[in-house]
């Protein structure tokens, strides 16, 4: 019992899976969760720089308006959009809907395409 407690099985590591849409989107969900953590950290630093005053905020503005800054911000927007949309997909699964392979593949494609459209939408709206 004690040994069982200590050596509980892990999830199979990613290398053992055959690549397919469902697993790719699932891995992306986790990957975007980690990117989102970096994203919210950036948002916190944005608010902190605002608190520190105009001089400090200038540096953040310089970063945000630079090419690399824009690239990172748009990337974070996509990451949040994807995680949000795929999260809705997960909520439907939790309620017992959408498990058929055809449905799951279709909803996956819808999520992937929508995540890009939503990102474009957010930045056009800006």
């Amino acid at each position, binding site marked *: 019992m004690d040994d069982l407690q200590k*050596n509980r099985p892990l999830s199979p590591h990613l290398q053992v899976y055959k690549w397919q849409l469902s697993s790719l989107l699932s891995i992306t969900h986790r990957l975007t969760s980690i990117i989102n*953590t970096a994203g919210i950290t950036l948002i916190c630093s*944005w*608010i902190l720089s605002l608190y520190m005053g105009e001089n400090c*905020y200038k540096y953040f503005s310089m970063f945000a308006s630079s090419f690399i800054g824009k690239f990172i911000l748009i990337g974070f927007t996509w990451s949040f959009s994807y995680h949000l949309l795929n*999260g809705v997909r997960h*909520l439907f699964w939790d309620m017992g809907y959408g498990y058929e392979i055809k449905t799951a593949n279709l909803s996956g494609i819808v999520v992937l395409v929508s995540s890009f459209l939503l990102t474009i939408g*957010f930045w056009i709206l800006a």
Partner: protein
Amino acid sequence: MSNNVVKKWMLQRISAVILLPVLIWFLSIFTGLIQKDYQTVLAFFKNDINFVFSVILLVLVFFHMKIGMGEIFEDYIQNSRYKSVANFIISVFATVLPLVTIVSLVLIKFN
């Protein structure tokens, strides 16, 4: 033990559902706001509604993140001591960063 896991599972879903509209609101404003000047952004966070929603967003995002990261550690870290350390680091991070940010928001609002 299992009750605790069920609770975490539920809380992760509840925070996700509340975060949906709050995050959409935030992203639609953030993309424009981040390109604005200091005074405009300052005025935005001084506004009551924006202030409240920003605080809700920060609390829920870090709450959701902490549970989610715990799930990833559960899947991929076997050594229970390393797992505890990883969870502890995430807990500190998910408490300190939102706390400092929310205190800044309060100071911005009431200054």
